[in-house]
């Protein structure tokens, strides 16, 4: 029998391996990460997750591509007379819908972390605790920007020509980010209490489908029956899309922008503290 094997077997029962001892004795304690760098680190984690689980971007890209092509070519002629013209009308709304739909992943990520115990580890660290959430939202901002970029590129290939030029498009994307960022807080709050990922997705379906379809994204609300029009007229997504269209086509609508910002502020004011409450409440 090989004696060296015997020897390692002995150490495994008796004295602890020196490699581990030396790790422990050299472990220096750095000065603590501040709130900013902790948040950025969590943002980096979110980006790593996009890299390792690119499927989460699939939703963000497949749907808008499908919707844009389907609505433009299938219905564009009927609705707006020509596909080219319809695309000018549709694209800002499709971009809004895409990003609004993927806000639910913020909650899904939080929910996963809680169920898998990862959250416990982060909560037991001596860091500014909300940086976990801020970092996640930073990661979301990256996802939203990526998704917006994909939609706009597709649009340009198909013939979308924003009259507002690059500045108009950028402003529209910025407004969309603000709105989606605010909307994310709802999902984070629900992510804390949802029993499973499935229930979260179901809830998002129930909330986000009416919000995005019963809006001015696909058709002019004036063509709708009056009861539906009444809903569409107060739907936050309607204001968002109104504002984005204005910005992209070089005719900013102060009303749409103002109301969108006000709704965003309202969402943060309500769901921000609620989320923080749920976060601090030790289950």
């Amino acid at each position: 029998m090989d004696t060296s094997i015997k020897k390692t077997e002995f150490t495994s029962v008796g004295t602890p391996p020196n490699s581990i001892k030396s790790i422990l004795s050299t472990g220096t304690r750095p000065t603590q990460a501040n709130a900013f760098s902790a948040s950025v680190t969590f943002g980096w984690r979110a980006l790593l997750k996009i890299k390792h689980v690119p499927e989460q971007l699939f939703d963000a890209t497949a749907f808008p591509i499908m919707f844009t092509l389907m609505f433009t070519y299938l219905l564009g002629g009927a609705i707006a007379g020509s596909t080219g013209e319809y695309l000018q009308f549709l694209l800002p709304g499709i971009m809004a819908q895409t990003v609004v739909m993927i806000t639910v992943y913020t909650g899904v990520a939080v929910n996963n972390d809680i169920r898998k115990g990862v959250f416990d580890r982060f909560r037991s660290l001596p860091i500014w605790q909300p940086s976990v959430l801020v970092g996640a939202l930073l990661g979301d901002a990256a996802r939203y920007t990526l998704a917006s970029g994909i939609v706009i590129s597709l649009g340009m290939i198909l013939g979308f020509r924003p009259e507002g030029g690059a500045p108009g498009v950028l402003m529209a994307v910025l407004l969309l980010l603000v709105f989606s960022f605010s909307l994310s807080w709802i999902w984070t709050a629900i992510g804390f209490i949802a029993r499973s990922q499935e229930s979260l997705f179901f809830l998002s379906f129930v909330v986000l489908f009416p919000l995005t379809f019963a809006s001015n994204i696909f058709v002019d609300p004036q063509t709708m029956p009056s009861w539906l029009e009444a809903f569409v007229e107060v739907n936050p997504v309607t204001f968002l899309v109104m504002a984005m269209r204005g910005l992209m086509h070089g005719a900013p609508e102060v009303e749409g922008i103002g109301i969108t910002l006000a709704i965003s502020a309202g969402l943060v004011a309500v769901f921000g503290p609620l989320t923080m409450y749920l976060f601090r409440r030790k289950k």
Partner: protein
Amino acid sequence: MNRMENLNPAIEISGLTRYFGDVRAVDGIDLTVERGGVYGILGPNGAGKTTLIRMLATLLQPSAGTAKVFGHDIVSEARTIRKLVSLTGQFASVDEDLTGRENLVLLGRLFGFSARQAKIRAGDLLNGFGLIDASRRQVKTYSGGMRRKLDIAASLVVRPELIFLDEPTTGLDPRSRNQVWDIVRALVSEGTTVLLTTQYLDEADQLAGSIAVIDHGKVIAEGTPAELKRSVGTSILRIHLKNKDQKVKAKEVVALMVNSDFTEDTDPFRISIHVEDADEASHVISALVNASVEVSGFSLGQPSLDEVFLALTGQPVKTESGEDE
């Protein structure tokens, strides 16, 4: 750590209680854990081990009572405690989507290391724990033992003064279990205090200097492993008979020699009894042979958790399938 703190025990728990609705998960626990060494919390599933540890690690607030870690209150000084302790939970709390290396770099950054320092530290830990070959793979591809090692490594990115290990070897194969034991011993030899929960008396005996046995959220016994085993009977002798018709006769012979009760044994070919030591065991065996009871084999082992419970509470362990979140 300043000198004042050095005077305090690692953990002082007084009347600590936690309810979940009607369930008293932890029901008025008093304990003191001195610095250095391993303190074992032994108890069956549902005894309240995880709840206790989560309160001490500042993840859960007590319903009543107080606890201090190195003299700091777990409620009002939670943040100070978080600088001194690490928790390795019952279920691996590493990010499965990330690689092993990314997990450790992430924690290093959160502890305040620069990007470069965090990478070096992650590399050292991966080497030390024998995970370097798997370091660039996503954690979801790891085996249970590898995950557990990574999870412990994640608790050592910065050396803690006190580490909580919640059932660190449950579900591991014997080889991985031995590796985890080695890690625990290395931690102790470097001066870290370890609070470990387990369902195995054997494990507590191997590692811990003191043990508290808990059941239904209460401490039902406390002491060194030797004291605990003495209260139960040092060892358990199991004798396998060739012929089950001789069980009654064998019991008669053994009862004359040993001053303790038989433990329940449903196997018709086997009798089990507590003996003081190996000497007494050998006397019992030879007495059986002299009485011409045919023995096909025997073993001398430590009492199982069930037997400890039976001895301490007079009741067998009631395990609960309900798990924590």
